[in-house]
């Protein structure tokens, strides 16, 4: 009975982490109409930033090749792990730092170009982290990454991390909701619906788009950091586009683009389908059929229900 409960908690943790990404993608696609198919790049940046900064310096006896670990995990205040929120914000900051110049180059052009550039960035970053072993241990990956509130002992650590994920998700949702309902968010929706009108009413559309891209990328960076401290192991293969980009797109499509609640609902639903179809009998549990399913979900929802299950108001 316990093992089923642990499995279920693990499932909820992953769904919660994916929800953060989906909320970030919702800022890009659902609110502003920015076509980002390189979620993996911000996922990777956030995850590696968290891993590198929180891990202690490498121990030569383990044949590790990376040179530098920030060892932020020693940073506590009155016994509370304040390093964790600092790491989350740092990951977001690094993603924003990369997103802004990228957006400045491409957003002034056709909307498809952003897709191509983000796609290329995801591949390039993955190759960099595979080849530059001094940076993050190459293909062997970073492991034993510190986790927050490790000293609280209640049997299964997953319960604590579940609470951490939920609190972070609520925080991210609150910020995204606040931004969506602000005048700034209204301008973004205006850009999505009719860009020309927005230009005519004197808005600097380019600036708003770059801001929206950076904001969404920052949220994705937080998601990456959450993933790292939950899994405690990352290597470049973790950031293959299937589980780091496509499935997040299908989550947003199912849940309803333009609606943060829908995005979170879609994450739980799609990750549930992804997780529980592995218990189907025979060939139905084949992982590759799930690929087909994710692709079909994106197409069918675009064709027949572009607003998703929970449409935006």
């Amino acid at each position: 009975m316990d093992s089923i409960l642990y499995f279920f908690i693990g499932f909820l943790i992953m769904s919660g982490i994916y929800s953060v990404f989906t909320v970030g993608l919702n800022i890009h696609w659902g609110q502003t109409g920015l076509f980002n198919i390189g979620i993996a790049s911000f996922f990777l940046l956030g995850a590696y930033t968290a891993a590198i900064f929180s891990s202690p310096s490498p121990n030569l006896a383990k044949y590790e090749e990376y040179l530098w670990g920030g060892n932020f995990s020693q940073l506590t205040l009155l016994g509370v792990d304040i390093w964790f929120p600092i790491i989350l914000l740092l990951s977001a900051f690094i993603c924003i730092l990369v997103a802004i110049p990228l957006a400045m180059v491409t957003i002034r052009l056709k909307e498809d170009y952003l897709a191509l550039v983000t796609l290329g960035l995801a591949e390039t970053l993955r190759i960099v982290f595979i080849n530059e072993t001094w940076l993050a241990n190459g293909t062997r990956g970073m492991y034993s990454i510190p986790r927050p509130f490790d000293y609280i002992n209640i049997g299964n650590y997953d319960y604590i991390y579940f609470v951490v994920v939920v609190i972070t998700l609520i925080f991210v949702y609150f910020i995204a909701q606040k931004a969506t309902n602000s005048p700034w968010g209204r301008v973004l929706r205006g850009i999505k619906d009719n860009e020309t009108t927005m230009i005519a009413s004197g808005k600097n559309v380019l600036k708003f788009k770059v801001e929206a891209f950076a904001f969404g990328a920052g949220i994705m960076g937080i998601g990456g950091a959450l993933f790292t401290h939950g899994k405690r192991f990352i290597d470049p293969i973790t950031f293959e586009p299937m589980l780091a980009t496509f499935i997040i797109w299908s989550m947003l499509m199912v849940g309803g683009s333009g609606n943060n609640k829908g995005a979170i609902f879609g994450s739980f639903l799609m990750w549930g389908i992804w997780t529980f179809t592995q218990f189907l009998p025979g060939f139905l549990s084949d992982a590759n059929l799930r690929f087909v399913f994710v692709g079909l979900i994106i197409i069918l929802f675009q064709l027949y229900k572009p607003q998703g299950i929970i449409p935006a108001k």
Partner: protein
Amino acid sequence: MKKLDILLDNKILSLIIIVICLASFLKPWLLINGILIGSLYSLGSIGLSLIYGNLKFANMAHGDFMTLSSYIALTLMMFLFPNSENSTSVGPFTFKYELLMVMPLAVIIIGFMAVILDKLIFKKLRKLNATSAAIALCSLGLAVSIRGLIQFIWGTDSARFPRESKLFWDLPFRIKIPPDMFFCSVVAVIIAIIFYLVLFKTTLGKAIRATSDNPDLARITGINTDRIILYIWFIGGILAATAGILISVQQALITPVMGWKILIPLFAAVIVGGIGNPIGALIGGILIGITGELATGWINPSYKPAVYFFVLLIVLLLRPNGILGNKGRQF
């Protein structure tokens, strides 16, 4: 001559060209390899450019059409010629005669598949007046589905066509060419010329160019634009499939992700040449091939995809309409 002026106008672009010339002078064998690989990229990017220019969206499934064509050719070969593993290979090349027979068949299958997919998916999206990004998103979903299907049917391991190892051709200046690569490039150039003749010398080509330029006007003059779009998909599918099979012959390897990996250089080639400009895509493909190969002379070869990405970024920064200086509506 006017096009040459445009090239010389742009100082940064001239600088890049000088760097390429200098690099190819230092390591000429890389230049030859680059031209040969680039001709394969060209074939893929011509089809991509045709669809991008006419239907106004980035077809992310183009790479997976290429992968699928290789697997279909492989299956046809196993099915129609079960003992092709032991048969003789063609002249100095590593592949067998049977491949030349199944290739047209596989290519036409992919052509029709592209047409059917248009009827099932993209036609409906056009009717819904979907934005170009939404259509591209659907093509992304299609790409994921096709890849999943390939991995489900043929497995995630790599495969290869039946082949026989052959010596490389040794030329002066340390140039070594695998005979296959030469064959593939020649076929690519022939197909590109045929495509050029179809586009610029036939009524169908004229209709395609008219539809691309102004669909409404084309419809008024009596061109059945829906039909033309099907032709565009058919030609695009054929070009993708040919490129896919040739690339897997040249690499002596078929993997489920090969089409996805090639998307970035293909799109870079399309944008370098100007979207919708077949000649531009041809030049762009060769330029991308040369840049990628020359870079391996100085940079770790595993960074080749990163080089393609930086070429894409630089082109978007300096010449987002392509180096030929058109507005992406050349034909």
